[in-house]
């Protein structure tokens, strides 16, 4: 499993596991390490450190080093067994609550809450006081029964989420019984959390045992690190200057606890990738080519030869490859492509919002007079929102849940020098009116708004400083069609009224064709076709565009069978020779498309395509052959559909 490999690839987990292993081996091989019996009283009291007694002797004449090594046994046992029992309880209660739901869940949840807030250690002390003298097991049991609640809470939450996951539902529909659902479908997916929880519980157990032993509840006739501390304290070790008698067992506990915590932490990071996002060291980037003055001087935004990648431990994923695009003032440029084609990466790179491991590998971006890729952080901050703003895909989550909408509208303006309260209020009202929301919602919190309204708020914020350009990354994808349409109409109205340029990114080509001035089609990190929207719709040039257009079932006309595009896009971490669409293309020319370096060719006025069908140096016969083959295939498809799909 990749999780395990990840686990052992971390220094943290290695240190934790290593220390634990050494301790385990040492304690098991104790007789080989020390010749002394930890309980034998044969030596003089408080003997100093010497070659015979590395750590001297106790007040009763026991060898401290022997006690330390043998004491590890019980300490480890308490940690492991109490951790195990507590984890078992956590898993049982967590799963039972989540799986059974309803009143059982309510009851267990209340129980968990009660045990969470009951102060554990005093309870353990009181309980052990009544049960004392019975060896190590009562202690283990008491610790387990007070230490399970924290894990149960976490595991219940995860099990509840798993219970609603489609694969569990699918197993129910398949007819699986409760046993299989719990043990084969849910439990394996909780393994990481359970392991992390075990180490957390073991840490709690070791510390609790030490505390109990130290104050003399529990069984002080046993040798554990905790009881060593008890005797050291009881016999005044420190007053006698035998500080090592105290220092050693405590240090042992601290290190054992640290290794448990390290393991817990490491597993946590793997199960929650956000925490562990490895900090790939970015290579010192060559200073990007100065972007001032590049590209078409009339254009508002000029992207030239932009290369963007994600740095991984393996090969770099080249998500955007040599992209050059211009956006004219007031233009709505549509950017279409399927998931993983690099359209969002392009947007984030251009707006300089790309987080590591993403990185601009080369190229330049000019917006008006600003060389975007070479701005200092403070220059960038000033330019942001004033010159260009952005509307994100997940509008549901872009508003800060704990701040009022008003504050979030204001702060964009305040950050750029508008501080007058009256002006802010007037502008906010104006903006809300523009996007069709009542001004009273300014004083609402985000969760009080529907998805459509949140997206309108975000668009209002994007318009706040009347930027020259707004980059919209799938702004309506998560919304229902009707709301989507209303918002698109508003976007269209506003941009015509204010003359704002928009880059509109979506996977929905039909939508894009309807509302864009020009459309760029991206495939595998490249812009493969660029054309005015009506031209693209009427005469798509690139076979990918053609096939993509054909992939939408029509809303009108006779129902005929259509086919999608077989295959899948190439891996972006590999070097692509020739056309990236070659494998899936129905008009491919072997020997040309998979050999020649990809180039962009003019097709018609304002229309370009990265396709060798438009390469004047390729022989016309080859092209005709390729086109004829594709039509042949198409006829077969339609003949087949004649008797299968066309029911009406």
């Amino acid at each position, binding site marked *: 499993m990749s999780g395990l490999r990840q686990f052992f690839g971390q220094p943290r987990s290695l240190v934790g596991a290593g220390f634990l292993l050494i301790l385990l081996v040492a304690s098991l091989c104790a007789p080989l390490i020390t010749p002394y019996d930890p309980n034998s009283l044969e030596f003089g009291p408080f003997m100093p450190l010497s070659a015979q007694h590395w750590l001297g002797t106790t007040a009763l004449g026991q060898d401290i080093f022997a006690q330390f090594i043998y004491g590890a046994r019980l300490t480890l046992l308490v940690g492991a067994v109490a951790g195990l029992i507590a984890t078992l309880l956590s898993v049982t209660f967590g799963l039972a609550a989540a799986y059974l739901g309803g009143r059982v869940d309510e009851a267990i949840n209340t129980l968990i809450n009660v045990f969470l807030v009951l102060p554990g250690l005093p309870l353990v002390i009181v309980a052990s006081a009544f049960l004392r003298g019975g060896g190590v097991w009562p202690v283990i049991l008491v610790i387990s029964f007070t230490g399970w609640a924290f894990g149960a809470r976490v595991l219940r939450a995860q099990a509840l989420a798993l219970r609603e996951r489609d694969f569990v539902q699918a197993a129910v529909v398949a007819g699986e019984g409760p046993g299989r659902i719990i043990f084969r*479908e849910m439990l394996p997916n909780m393994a990481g959390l359970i392991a992390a929880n075990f180490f957390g519980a073991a840490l709690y157990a070791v510390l609790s045992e030490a505390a109990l032993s130290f104050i003399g509840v529990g069984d002080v006739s046993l040798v554990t690190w905790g009881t060593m501390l008890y005797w050291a304290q009881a016999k005044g070790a420190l007053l006698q200057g035998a500080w090592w008698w105290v220092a050693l067992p405590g240090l042992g506990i601290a290190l054992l606890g640290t290794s448990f915590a390290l393991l817990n932490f490491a597993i946590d990071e793997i199960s929650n990738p956000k925490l562990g996002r490895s900090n790939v060291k970015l290579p010192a980037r060559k200073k990007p080519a100065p972007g001032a003055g590049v590209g078409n001087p009339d254009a508002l935004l000029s992207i030239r030869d932009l290369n963007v990648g994600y740095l991984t431990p393996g090969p770099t994923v080249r998500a955007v490859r040599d992209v050059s695009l211009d956006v004219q003032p007031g233009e709505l440029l549509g950017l279409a492509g399927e998931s993983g084609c690099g359209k969002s990466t392009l947007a984030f790179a251009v707006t300089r919002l790309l987080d590591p491991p993403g990185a601009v590998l080369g190229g330049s971006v000019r917006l008006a007079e600003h060389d975007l890729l070479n701005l200092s952080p403070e220059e960038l901050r000033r330019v942001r929102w004033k010159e260009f703003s952005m509307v994100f895909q997940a509008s549901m989550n872009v508003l800060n849940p704990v701040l009022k909408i008003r504050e979030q509208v204001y702060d964009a303006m305040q950050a750029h020098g508008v501080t007058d309260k009256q002006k802010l209020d007037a502008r906010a009202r104006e903006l809300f009116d523009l996007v069709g929301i009542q001004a009273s919602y300014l004083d609402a919190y985000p969760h009080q708004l529907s998805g459509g309204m949140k997206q309108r708020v975000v668009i209002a914020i994007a318009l706040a400083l009347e930027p020259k350009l707004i980059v919209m990354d799938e702004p309506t994808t998560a919304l229902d069609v009707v709301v989507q349409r209303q918002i698109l109409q508003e976007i269209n109205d506003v941009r015509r009224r204010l003359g704002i340029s928009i880059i509109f990114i979506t996977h929905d080509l039909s939508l894009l064709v309807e509302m864009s001035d020009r459309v760029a089609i991206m495939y595998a990190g490249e812009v493969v076709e660029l054309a005015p929207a009506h031209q693209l719709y009427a005469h798509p040039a690139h076979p990918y565009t053609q096939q993509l257009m054909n992939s939408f079932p029509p809303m009108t006309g006779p129902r005929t069978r259509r086919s999608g595009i077989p295959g899948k896009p190439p891996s972006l971490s590999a070097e692509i020779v020739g056309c990236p669409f070659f494998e899936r293309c129905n008009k491919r020319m072997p020997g040309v498309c998979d050999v020649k370096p990809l180039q962009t060719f003019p097709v018609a006025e304002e229309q370009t395509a990265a396709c060798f069908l438009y390469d004047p140096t390729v022989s016309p016969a080859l092209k005709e052959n390729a086109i004829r083959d594709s039509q042949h295939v198409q006829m077969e498809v339609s003949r087949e559909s004649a008797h299968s799909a066309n029911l009406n």
Partner: protein
Amino acid sequence: MSQPTAPISTNASTPTNTIPNTLEIVNLRKVFGTRGKAGGVVAVNDVSFAIARGEVLGLVGESGSGKSTIARLIARLYTPTSGEIRLNGQPVPSRLGGRALRHLRKNVQMIFQDPYASLNPVHPVSYTLKRPLQIHGLARGDTEEQVNSLLERVGLSPASTYASKRPFELSGGQRQRVGIARALAVRPELILADEPTSALDVSIRLDVMNLMLDLKDQEGLSMLFITHDLAGARYMSDRVAVLYAGTLVEIGPAVEVIDRPQHPYTQLLKSAAPKPDAGLVPETIEARGEVPDLKTLPPGCPFEPRCPHALPECKAGLPRMYDVGEGHTARCILHDPAVQARRGQEVGVSR
């Protein structure tokens, strides 16, 4: 809420009347989160429809319309609050267990929306496909061969290489094919497909839809095809049912309903769909606002607050389903002869 039971339209696509409908649901209702108290969320509000053998019924609606809930009620992932579900004419008992539940599980299968969530990441493909066979006693001798033939049937070949893969090694389209294979494994009579293509890229959607159509033809399956996409419903379905706020508002032959929608909500949905061929000018939608809160539904037509054609009597009570064409009904008072007579020549809903 008393309302005349809508006649179950077993329409022309049923070859003869001797074969019972694969699925009939009558006044199906689901109220969430009440625990006996009043004021729950009415997710499904007395919905009735039928699916004939070999028929695909497209169930169209926006999020929160109750379309997924209906599928989960039929699959018994939820228990209905009231109403009846019949399989092949036999009522499914409201308390299910043992043999009856097993019978249901064998005959009703589901395809889920998100192929990334519907396959357990810890199991290889072969496990996912083997289990249904084993549960329902269909595993014969070499299950490996059965698994391979399933994989071949959904277009994953060579099957042996896919059988040992885990979900993270597959693309979205491949995962969804595995999901389809899992549903087919037990040779069910009814497949509930809950937005099976909306999480997929456009270029592979059609192929998955085509696969489902082919398999349906080969196996004589009936299918409930849930979608928010009118064009997809038109492509896939024989008949289409439109849901709004848990209520069935229109049902009829797919091309009829989508080409000539008779309920103002269906008309709204249609006008909102992208139309690259409609002259490239965004069309203005009349209806404003958003779907009402299901906790506080108006007593009358749920669409009344947004409806551009609303009349005072729309608030009075939930309209019945009116016949508006052959096997085509719509829950709109504008089709009431009395209303039409009174409104005279003014406005017709059906343009």
